[in-house]
């Protein structure tokens, strides 16, 4: 499992935001911060308002501002579902 990478997908209510491979996702849940590395056990958690950070396999770290939503992790697939999500500046569109 250690060799794997995360498959990340971010969707907002009415549009698709970002997807791609990543080595780490850091998110803020309603309880506190959670960091997800490859091989994480399945989790379904509520997102708190704030920023979440994604470290893609290649390229700069991506910061996405989200308000409420939830995210799920299972077998290295991270799906982040937010009501509104905007990719922070200093990031080019990423690999869509």
């Amino acid at each position: 499992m250690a060799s794997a990478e995360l498959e990340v997908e971010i969707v907002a209510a009415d549009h698709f935001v970002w997807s791609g491979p990543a080595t780490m996702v850091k998110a803020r849940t309603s309880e506190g911060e959670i960091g997800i590395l490859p091989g994480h056990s399945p989790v379904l958690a509520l997102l708190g308002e704030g920023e979440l950070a994604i470290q893609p396999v290649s390229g700069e770290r991506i910061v996405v501002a989200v308000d409420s939503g939830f995210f799920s992790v299972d077998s290295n697939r991270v799906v982040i579902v937010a009501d509104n999500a905007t990719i922070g500046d200093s990031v080019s569109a990423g690999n869509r």
Partner: protein
Amino acid sequence: MGAQIRVYRQKISSTTSMRKIFKAMELIATSRIGKARTRVAASLPYANAITRAVSAVASQSEIDHPLTTEHTEVRRAAVLIMTSDRGLAGSYSASVLKQAESLLEMLRSEGKEVKSFLVGRKAQAYFDFRNRSYEKAWTGGTDAPEFATAREIGTALVDEFITGYEDGGVDEIHVVYMRFRSMVTQEPTVIRLLPLEVVEEETSNTSDLLPLYEYEPEPERVLDALLPRYIESRIFAALLQAAASELAARQRAMKSAGDNATELIKKYTRLRNTARQAEITQELSEIVAGADALSAS
């Protein structure tokens, strides 16, 4: 005789200007339909993700959540009817209302009270004209729905559902909308929104077994947050489909209206020519008759 020609001329010119309007509306609908379909497609990832999560939560944990449990006795139902704001879309609103009417009939025959919620001015006008009561109506922007509207509707409906029967709440919620199958077929569809029947999608794929999630915070609170979102996304999906259907219906209606106008113009042009010819013939025979009378005397 001259009066008749003038009438035909007037009809031709008014039909021509109407045809211009129909053509313009057809073109507008055609250009918007692509956008509407893109929005339907764009809302799919969210809907899929949320459906998957809700299925996972609902299938594993036997959580007794108010939104998933069927009320033992259904005494009052809410119906959400989605029509358009504006007309000139053929039978679009009429067929949705017809479908809604038969649903209402069915619910009443089962002895349920019905509360109506309306989307679109056409539905509102329909209810107002018949002096029927409705709980709430959302109008404006049916051809380009916003997610905020879906959220508002979702909140209102979930509130109704959570409220007990004794306090005026409802036991089930139905939605009537026009489903967009293709550019040429749209069909009025009824779905039951609540109590939830989680739509299982492509679960036949065995490698795609739903994982055993850990929850953060407790499963109940996750469900609390998930289910309203699920409802909202279902409503939003229905609104988007309805918008695409409305535009498709309008485009078709305007196309046939334009064609009919062309036919009419052709017909009136022929009639006008006949009338003009008749006038000329009559004038000629009058002149000839006059000349004859003069030379005879």
